[in-house]
């Protein structure tokens, strides 16, 4: 009988296997071991904490590392947005709304130490005599510019049938004044200070920045969902991260190729005790008056990434027109603090947006400090601030462990002139304020760094932006996706919605027992957990397919998501 019975079949197979192993063992094999695999001291891999929380932290750290490894600016930005197709739920920070008692929250969210400088009253005779001469020369120009601006604007207001409201009036007048004052200052100073010839002026640029803040109490839905799971019940009230998006439109912004000099040394910046003395605002920002919105993470310092653009901010003029709308019952002290909060958040956001274009983001730490200067003005009252950004890590456990702190120092608002008289003459011009303004212009951006030092997390000298890729399709895809995310356009198709009757009769009170469960909330699908690349791909018609009509592989346009 040629067919073996089952037992014999098995035994035959076992014998064959053993023979294979036995034969291998029997042959003497020349074993070669690479020397590099062995070291004198045993090097054990890191012992990982395998608890649930640590594993979550580990996945987050791996995601941050993936972002760091990406070579170009646009890809990093797209990667941050990858987990959410419909955008993140972010706290909306604006330059139009600063609620009561906003300063502790702003300091916590930006990890800033605020130093209020006293207004310099009398100028000491020994320092800066050359600045005195410049101030004298600029004085007449500026007074003329102010009178001109007020006159022309008042003359033009006559023409309008309905005059605009107070906020818009202030904004229009201040825009004219700021542009004229900036022009006069640059004309007066550019002869002596060469860096002002290379400055780039942005008119009403778009400053937006996105970052994650830790040490905030979890919202009620997070607490409830954690309490419902036995392995997370004990961690229900642990602090979690809150995502923040700043949107601002200053009057004017000046940029330069090189960085401003720092005014806090690295030793002073790394101070854990100082960091722990910072105010902590653990409660939800909505209790103060901020609102939330759903938006992609957008980091734009007013321009798109470009190779030889002046990439470092020097000076920005912020608007305080909307602060008029705050209730009068807030009080003077809180109005002053609101200005400080506005300066801190706008400076931090602009610096963060610029740093994003250099490869840093809220998840990857800075390797060198950044500086900027801010002026908040309404044409008459001017406050001057300087900001030094030392760290971007304010999320997660870094709230308690990051020794680095950001610094901001600024003055109270000082009037540049008392008023413009009915004849159009400027009354009581204040030289001190003008001197402080010119000091901001005079501070020359002098720090030069090598390209490697500037862009440590990028893909080398030849690959920094999407425009550096050789593949044209990839370039186009990355540029298109990046700008689409930054445009905050709504998606074409409607968002998934639970109708009111479904909320009442299917979710809150389960009255429809016999209906088929076809809706997304009945099938345990969370439609907001859709990632950016979960969409139908663009179809390539047969006529345009590379490789001819019959090419099935080229049916869909290739995507280059990081």
């Amino acid at each position, binding site marked *: 009988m040629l067919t073996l019975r089952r037992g014999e079949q098995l035994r035959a197979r076992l014998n064959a296997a053993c023979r294979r192993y036995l034969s291998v063992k029997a042959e003497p094999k020349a074993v070669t071991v690479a020397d590099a695999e062995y070291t004198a001291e045993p090097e054990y891999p890191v012992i990982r904490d395998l608890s649930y929380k640590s594993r979550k932290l580990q996945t987050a750290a791996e995601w941050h590392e993936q972002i760091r490894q990406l070579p170009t600016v646009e890809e990093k930005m797209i990667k941050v947005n990858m987990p959410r197709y419909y955008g993140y739920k972010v706290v909306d920070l604006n330059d139009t709304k600063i*609620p*009561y*008692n906003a300063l502790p929250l702003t300091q916590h969210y930006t990890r800033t130490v605020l130093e209020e400088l006293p207004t310099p009253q009398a100028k000491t005779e020994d320092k800066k005599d050359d600045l005195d001469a410049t101030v004298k020369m600029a004085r007449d120009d500026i007074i003329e510019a102010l009178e001109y601006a007020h006159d022309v604007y008042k003359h033009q207001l006559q023409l309008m049938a309905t005059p605009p409201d107070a906020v818009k009036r202030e904004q229009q007048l201040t825009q004219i004044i700021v542009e004229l004052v900036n022009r006069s200052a640059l004309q007066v100073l550019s002869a002596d200070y060469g860096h002002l010839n290379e400055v780039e002026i942005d008119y009403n640029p778009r400053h937006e920045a996105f970052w994650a803040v830790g040490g905030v*109490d979890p*919202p*009620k839905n997070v607490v409830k969902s954690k309490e419902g799971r036995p392995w997370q019940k004990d961690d229900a009230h642990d602090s979690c991260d809150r995502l923040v998006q700043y949107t601002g439109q200053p009057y004017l912004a000046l940029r330069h190729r090189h960085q401003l000099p720092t005014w806090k040394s690295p030793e002073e910046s790394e101070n854990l005790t100082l960091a722990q003395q910072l105010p902590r605002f653990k*409660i*939800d920002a909505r*209790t*103060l*008056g901020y609102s939330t919105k759903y938006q992609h993470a957008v980091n734009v310092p007013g321009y798109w990434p470009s190779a030889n653009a002046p990439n470092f901010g020097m000076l920005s003029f912020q608007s305080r027109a909307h602060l008029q709308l705050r*209730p009068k*019952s*807030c*009080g003077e002290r*809180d109005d002053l603090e609101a200005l400080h909060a506005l300066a801190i958040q706008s400076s931090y956001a602009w610096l963060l947006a610029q740093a994003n274009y250099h490869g840093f983001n809220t998840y990857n730490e800075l390797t060198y400090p950044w500086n900027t200067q801010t002026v908040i003005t309404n044409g008459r009252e001017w406050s001057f601030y300087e900001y030094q950004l030392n760290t971007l890590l304010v999320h997660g456990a870094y709230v308690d462990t990051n020794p680095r702190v950001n610094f901001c120092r600024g003055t109270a608002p000082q009037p540049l002139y008392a008023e413009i008289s009915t004849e159009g003459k400027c009354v009581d011009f204040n030289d001190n304020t003008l001197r402080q303004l010119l000091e901001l212009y005079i501070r020359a951006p002098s720090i030069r760094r090598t390209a490697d030092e500037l862009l440590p997390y990028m893909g080398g000298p030849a690959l920094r932006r999407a425009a550096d890729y050789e593949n044209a399709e990839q370039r186009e895809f990355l540029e298109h996706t990046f700008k689409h995310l930054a445009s905050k356009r709504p998606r074409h198709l409607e968002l998934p919605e639970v109708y009111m009757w479904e909320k*009442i*009769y299917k979710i*809150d*009170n389960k*009255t429809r027992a016999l209906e088929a469960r076809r809706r997304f909330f009945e099938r345990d699908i969370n439609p907001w957990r859709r990632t950016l690349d979960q969409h139908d791909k663009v179809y390539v018609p047969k006529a345009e397919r590379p490789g001819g009509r019959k090419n099935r592989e080229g049916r869909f346009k290739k995507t280059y998501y990081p």
Partner: protein
Amino acid sequence: MSTRWYPIYQRGNPQLRVFLPNFWMKLVRPTEEQPANVVTFAVSTEMTKYDVKNYLEKIYKLPVVDVRTRIALGETKRDQTYGYVTKKDDVKYAYVTMPKTEAFTFPDIFVNKAEKQEKEEKSLDESKAGFRRFLDRNKKRPGTPGWYSI
């Protein structure tokens, strides 16, 4: 004080009385945690932010910086007897911000509840123990009245 329109008071006018005003405010514990200077009220749905502010400032002399309101949809419940879905009335909540120097926490009204319950239970336990002792004394003659001695 009310949604009715009353004649504007000028100096010299008689001080008219307001009867059955429909503005009311009720201090409630906030559902989400609020900063120390924010107080939460349940308020008549017809009141506006300015009404709430004036109410507190004029009647109770409280300094008010800012008021934010929201109308909470009343919850839906099943009727116990017939099973249909009913909806409770909507409530307006006002979050009143006071100056930073003021602080307010909602008082804990039921803090002594545990103690009171313990006291009640203790007295009940004591009376139960006493009755058990009585039964034990009369175990040789069960059912006889208590005034039997020895």
